[in-house]
């Protein structure tokens, strides 16, 4: 007889913890901040139970730095925060990008800028996730609208961090983080886990920590192991030693950029609802996608041909996939809780940017199906 699945009724932040533990998280450093604090609280309980490490650091910056240090000893590491803390972490996120250290950073978004609306929902950090740290780089950022997806996206974040040796941002929002919903815990092995790629270079042989293989991947050696090497945030050569040679700098920046931007299709996750015959395509993500789906179904019941493209990978932006899904659409509505951060990406991606409209809320109130209907009717010339 098949064993019954474990079914839980949880907050999104709790689901994130369950998924991170499923993925093999064993080091967490954090600092309390609304609306992400439940992640730290639950891990303070759960990590020591499995012999993992939890530390509450003195600030957001230190938390980010500590998980980078722990990752270098071979541990799957994560921190969680919200807007102000995400701002503080940016320099160290850039370090993890430059030094190619796998780790996962959760940002449960709240209203901003500055202290903003600490307990209210927003999706205002989309561009910060992409460009928050200085200098040319690429980044992976993912999101989810429901708990089952939040679980699999979180596991995927750990897998992608190891595959591409990069920080991965989980860009959740206050509604998803605090909402309670059913979660079926996947069986062990049901979602594949990618473990760290370690070097096969033997002790006594020169190990080049920053010399990519043909496939672009960089096998690692843990701190404390037999290979002693240098890790730096400076432009560096294949040994990890600082270099200011133009050729080295050019090659490194391209490597950091290309390893992600050349794999947009492999990284991309999206969900499609009623797109086959959709005249109006809604594009949304995170909690906004719940209202978008509801309104699509409301309109479908009336015979109107709406569809939804729900993005789970925000960065690298899946421009080609978005363009293809929008080719037959008469209108495209981007539904998000900011001033149009993904809207601009969609306009860049599609053939007719004049057909792309924004449905948004920026007041800390959850965007509703009515909000979407109002804009939909306006662009049809029907009035609200």
């Amino acid at each position, binding site marked *: 007889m098949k064993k019954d699945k474990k079914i839980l009724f949880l907050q999104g932040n709790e689901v994130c913890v369950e998924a991170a533990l499923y993925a093999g998280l064993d*080091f967490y*450093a954090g600092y309390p901040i609304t609306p992400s604090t439940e992640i730290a609280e639950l891990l303070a*309980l759960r990590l*020591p*139970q499995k*012999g993992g*490490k939890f*530390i509450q*650091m*003195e*600030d957001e*910056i*230190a*938390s980010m*730095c*500590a*998980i*980078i*240090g*722990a*990752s*270098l*000893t071979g*541990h799957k*590491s994560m921190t969680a925060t919200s807007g102000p803390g995400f701002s503080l972490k940016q*320099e*160290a996120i850039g*370090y993890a990008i430059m030094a190619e250290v796998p780790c996962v950073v959760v940002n449960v978004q709240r209203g901003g800028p500055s202290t903003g609306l600490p307990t209210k929902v927003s999706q205002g950090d989309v561009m910060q996730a992409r460009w928050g740290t200085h200098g040319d780089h690429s980044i992976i950022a993912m999101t989810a609208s429901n708990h089952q997806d939040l679980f699999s996206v979180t596991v995927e974040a750990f897998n992608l961090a190891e595959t591409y040796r990069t920080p991965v941002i989980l860009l959740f929002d206050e509604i998803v983080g605090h909402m309670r919903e059913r979660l079926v815990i996947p069986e062990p092995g049901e979602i594949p886990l990618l473990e760290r790629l370690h070097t096969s270079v033997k002790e006594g042989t020169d190990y080049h920590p920053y010399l990519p293989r043909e496939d672009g991947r960089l096998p690692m050696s843990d*701190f*404390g*192991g*037999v290979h*002693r*090497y*240098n*890790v*730096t*945030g*400076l432009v560096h050569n294949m*040994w990890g*030693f*600082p270099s200011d040679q133009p050729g080295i700098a050019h090659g490194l920046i391209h490597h950091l950029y290309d390893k992600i931007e050349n794999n947009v299709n492999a990284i991309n996750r999206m969900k499609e609802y009623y797109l086959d015959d959709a005249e109006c395509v809604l594009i949304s993500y995170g909690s906004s996608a719940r209202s978008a789906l509801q309104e699509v179904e409301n309109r479908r019941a009336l015979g109107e041909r709406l569809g939804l493209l729900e993005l789970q990978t925000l960065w690298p932006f899946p421009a080609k996939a978005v363009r293809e899904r929008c080719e037959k659409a008469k209108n495209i509505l981007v539904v998000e809780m900011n001033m149009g951060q993904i809207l601009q990406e969609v306009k860049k991606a599609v053939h007719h940017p004049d057909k792309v409209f924004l449905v948004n809320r920026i007041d800390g109130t959850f965007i509703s199906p009515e909000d979407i209907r109002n804009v939909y009717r306006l662009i049809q010339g029907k009035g609200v």
Partner: protein
Amino acid sequence: MSVSVKNYVRERFLPHIWCPGCGHGIVMNNMIRAIAELGLNKNDLVMVTGIGCSARISGYMDFHTLHTIHGRALAFATGVKLSRPELTLIVPMGDGDALAIGGNHFIHAARRNIDITAIIMNNNIYGMTGGQFSPLSGYGKKATTAPFGNIDEAFDIAALAKAAGASFVARTTTYHVAALKKTIKEAITHKGFSVVEVMSQCPTYFGRKNKIGGAVDMLNFYKDNTVPIGSPKKTENPALIETGVFVNEERPEYCAEYEKIVQKAQKTK
């Protein structure tokens, strides 16, 4: 004991960036001798640094080396240490790196009493950026950002470390090389957060701006203006700087305490 310094240096990475007469080479030399005399395995040693002249020391040393961002070396080191407590962590920092931008991490690492050895190479100035005053320059000193004299008072690193909870606190100078090596050995051996302030000359900026002279004059300054802790000379002349071990106490260490939490947590599972 004769030590082959070369065994601990990455020759591929040399020459170093330090100016002629800089004190940091003396610190590095004695750090190597201390590590060699302790018989530590290079694979068990992690050196974490931040940004600045002093921070470049990690690249030259043949350990696991992590050259990080300005001020945050102790935060990175905390992650390394807690995730692999059996490793030995040494964190050399400059005075600006450790106590201006990194001041918060410094006091909190001390408060936790995590088993990390912090070596503050105090040259009283920001050298890498060209001679701006640091929180250790002191009142009245000249710097490129204090052309009329500095009105910022300096920290007393030893008093600060003690108050913050460090369980080993010492001060020495690049003139007192025998004490320097011995103090670093004690600090590494000590179980808990150890702080060693090493007064290290910067003839290029601090010496020149403040008309102290060259490297030799600055070393002589350390000789003439320091006294062992408790010397009666200090009472006669309070401007003298005390050197020696200020604090050496056995106190619960963070990673060992965390292990106890794991034991408790596993009983409640």
